[in-house]
């Protein structure tokens, strides 16, 4: 008998916070809103911690039934929660990082008139995200999935009076719909073929299938459709375009939703469905290729961006690509490991960037920053930790997780590994570029900031003079995240570096491969005979080779650091000359490969034109409107003719009556005669 964990409290607490702040926040003071917002998200975190401490005594997976939802014939979906190692990791990341960002937001949003609204949305987001993570079936997960999309929309468009923010919110929502559509079809396929959406039931039915004839493409189809959903939510090619625009939202939102938690939902979903993906090699290949391409392309775009948040946005897209690459090569636990460390260091980087933006009065353009190292010591040091972590400098969180992914990618195909290492180099380069441009050299903001005050500083402006360090309420979360970014990787030190990869082993039971080992090589007969963990077989690989690859990726990181130092610290006029030399390529990359323009030309414009000329002018006006109008016109014309009968002349009425009576009588008489 396992103890009752009351898991339902974890999502419900933030929902209560959202309700309280949403309904009563307008009238209450900022202090009250703060207490409510922090209390409920903090309570969820505390409860999640409590669950984590009792986790070892649990029967895993732990399931908790709350209420009926849908009962239709044999098909049943309940409000029920599911906890295993994977959800526990996600749970702690979401509540932990979420709570820190809540604290940070107190400082960042204090001056904003929508303060209560912000906390209400933020708590609502926590509710949906936790529902997504804890659901025991795909449908409940889908609710969370849609819910985080909704709150993402609300928070991107938080400053909805600004046109760009409003349209960025719409863009994010609409692009997400495309992915959600694929996800939904995948779910319907599951309902049709497995008659259930509950994780355990679906996976139990999938498990007996072998990868060779996995339901005649059924699993591949489901896998690819799920991946389409993941592409939308996690900003992968071809649906990544919404994430950079999402930076219109307040910076804590970018940190929480568009870096640390929501965008990783796709990775979580793919990992959760690993039973399906393992049996659909083609779908896995799709995942890996999309991830790899996204990692590379987004990284290259990141080089040319000058908006500090945009750089981080493309970096997020790129890192998510890494995670999908990991999932695609079957290294789910490495993907989740990177998800966790990424949540730490990317959350940190965004918050630090927010602190910088806050300090310079709303300026986001790195070309107008510089030399902030001495003025913002806390921000500088925490951001340094984050930058080192993401760049993969040995000893920090990003190093271990990225290394785990690259090693597993190499085992699958050297092509993934090569792109991965190049991306690691680019990542290191653009991150240090950001770092050098922001904190070193001369401050370039003063004159420029006065020139066009208002365009950039419209929303983040806090009405103060001089550059100053952020208040303590913002610095403390930064410091905690910085510590996590530094030490977070030590839970997963690989064997080749003298560790035991505890993280990998912790997640092992979840991702224990259910595919009969090496059944593709040996004959089909003995399937199920050898249930081995692919994760478990790994340490057999030669550690020296793994060390060599580690050294290569470390070299790539330092190369990026060196190049950035050369270009943006030692001779800052060099980049402009290089950009001039390769002007064509630079333009293409700077305009994000014109992907937005291509989409606009290929999809948006035909859609708008088709809607205008065919649906609006054609169908709506010519068919629907004209049917109604013609019916009315016809009735009027007929009435115009017929109303002449109503002459108002009494004697003509009498005449008609007499004539009618005469006709009736004549008819009766004729009837009588005929008889």
């Amino acid at each position, binding site marked *: 008998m396992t103890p009752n964990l009351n898991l339902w409290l974890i999502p419900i607490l933030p929902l209560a916070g959202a309700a309280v702040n949403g309904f009563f926040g307008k009238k209450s003071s900022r202090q009250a809103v703060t207490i409510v917002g922090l209390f409920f998200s903090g309570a969820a975190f505390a409860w999640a911690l409590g669950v984590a401490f009792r986790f070892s005594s649990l029967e895993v997976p732990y399931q908790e039934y709350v209420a009926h939802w849908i009962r239709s014939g044999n098909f049943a979906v309940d409000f029920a929660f599911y906890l295993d190692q994977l959800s526990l990791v996600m749970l702690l990341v979401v509540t932990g990082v979420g709570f820190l960002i809540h604290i940070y937001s107190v400082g960042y949003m204090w001056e904003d008139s929508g303060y209560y609204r912000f906390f209400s949305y933020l708590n609502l987001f926590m509710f949906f995200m936790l529902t997504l993570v804890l659901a025991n079936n795909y449908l409940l997960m889908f609710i969370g999935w849609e819910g985080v999309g909704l709150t993402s929309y609300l928070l991107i468009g938080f400053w909805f009076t600004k046109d760009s923010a409003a349209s960025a919110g719409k863009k994010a929502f609409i692009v997400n719909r495309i992915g959600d559509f694929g996800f939904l079809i995948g779910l319907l396929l599951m309902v049709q073929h497995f008659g259930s959406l509950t994780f355990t039931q679906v996976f139990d039915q999938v498990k007996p299938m072998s990868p060779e004839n996995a339901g005649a493409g059924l699993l591949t189809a489901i896998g690819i459709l799920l991946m389409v959903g993941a592409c939308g939510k996690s900003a992968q090619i071809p649906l990544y375009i919404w994430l950079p625009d999402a930076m219109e939202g307040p910076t804590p939102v970018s940190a929480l939703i568009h870096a640390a938690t929501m965008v990783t939902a796709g990775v979580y979903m793919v990992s959760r469905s690993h039973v399906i993906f393992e049996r659909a090699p083609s779908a896995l290949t799709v995942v890996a290729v999309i991830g790899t391409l996204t990692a590379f392309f987004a990284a290259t775009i990141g080089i040319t961006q000058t908006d500090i948040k945009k750089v981080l946005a493309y970096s997020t897209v790129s890192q998510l690509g890494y995670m999908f690459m990991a999932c695609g090569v079957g290294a789910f636990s490495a993907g989740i490991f990177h998800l966790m460390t990424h949540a730490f260091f990317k959350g940190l980087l965004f918050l630090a960037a927010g602190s910088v933006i806050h300090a310079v009065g709303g300026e986001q353009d790195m070309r107008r920053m510089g030399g902030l190292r001495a003025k913002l010591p806390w921000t500088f040091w925490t951001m340094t930790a984050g930058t080192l972590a993401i760049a993969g400098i040995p000893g920090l969180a990003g190093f271990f997780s990225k290394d785990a992914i690259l090693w597993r990618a190499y085992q699958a195909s050297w092509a993934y590994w090569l792109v991965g290492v190049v991306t690691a180099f680019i990542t290191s380069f653009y991150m240090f570029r950001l770092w050098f441009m922001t904190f070193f050299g001369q401050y370039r903001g003063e004159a420029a900031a006065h020139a066009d005050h208002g365009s950039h500083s419209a929303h983040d402006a806090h009405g103060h003079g001089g550059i100053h360090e952020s208040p303590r309420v913002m610095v403390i979360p930064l410091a905690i995240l910085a510590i996590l970014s530094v030490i977070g990787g030590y839970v997963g030190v690989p064997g080749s570096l003298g560790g035991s990869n505890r993280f990998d082993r912790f997640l092992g039971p979840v991702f224990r491969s259910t595919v009969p080992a090496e059944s593709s090589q040996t004959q089909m007969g003995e399937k199920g005979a050898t249930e081995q963990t692919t994760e478990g077989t790994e340490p057999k690989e030669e550690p020296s080779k793994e060390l060599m690859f580690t050294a290569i990726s470390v070299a790539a990181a330092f190369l990026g650091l060196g190049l950035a130092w050369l270009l943006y610290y030692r001779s800052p006029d060099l980049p402009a000359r290089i950009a001039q030399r390769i002007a064509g390529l630079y333009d293409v990359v700077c305009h994000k490969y014109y992907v937005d323009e291509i989409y606009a030309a290929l999809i948006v414009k035909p859609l708008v034109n088709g809607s205008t000329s065919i649906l609006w002018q054609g169908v709506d006006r010519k068919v629907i409107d004209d049917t109604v109008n013609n019916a009315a016109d016809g009735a009027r014309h007929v009435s115009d003719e017929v*109303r002449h009968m*109503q*002459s*108002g*002349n*009494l*004697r003509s009425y*009498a*005449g008609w009556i*007499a004539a009618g009576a005469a006709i009736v009588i004549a008819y009766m008489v004729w009837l009588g005669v005929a008889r």
Partner: protein
Amino acid sequence: MVPLSYYLVLSGILFACGVCGFLIKRNIITIFMSIELMLNGVNLSFVAFAAHWHQLAGQVFVFFVMVVAAAEAAVGLAIIISVYRTRETLNVDQVNLLKL
């Protein structure tokens, strides 16, 4: 004994005269009289049938018709007088305020 058909033909002629008068005449008094003529034409056929079938129902109907006709005459003449007082004419073609 006069056969039933004679009464019916006379009744029909009276009724037709009433209808024609109603349709042709303009003076409201004449129209009123035409209506009385129609009513009495019908009354004649009622009593003729009553006598022919030896049943009293027809005669009872006639009394009802006469009562209604008397009431109608009272109300109708009152209306006619008030119309004449207000419009100084009894020509129905000129009493057309409600016409479209």
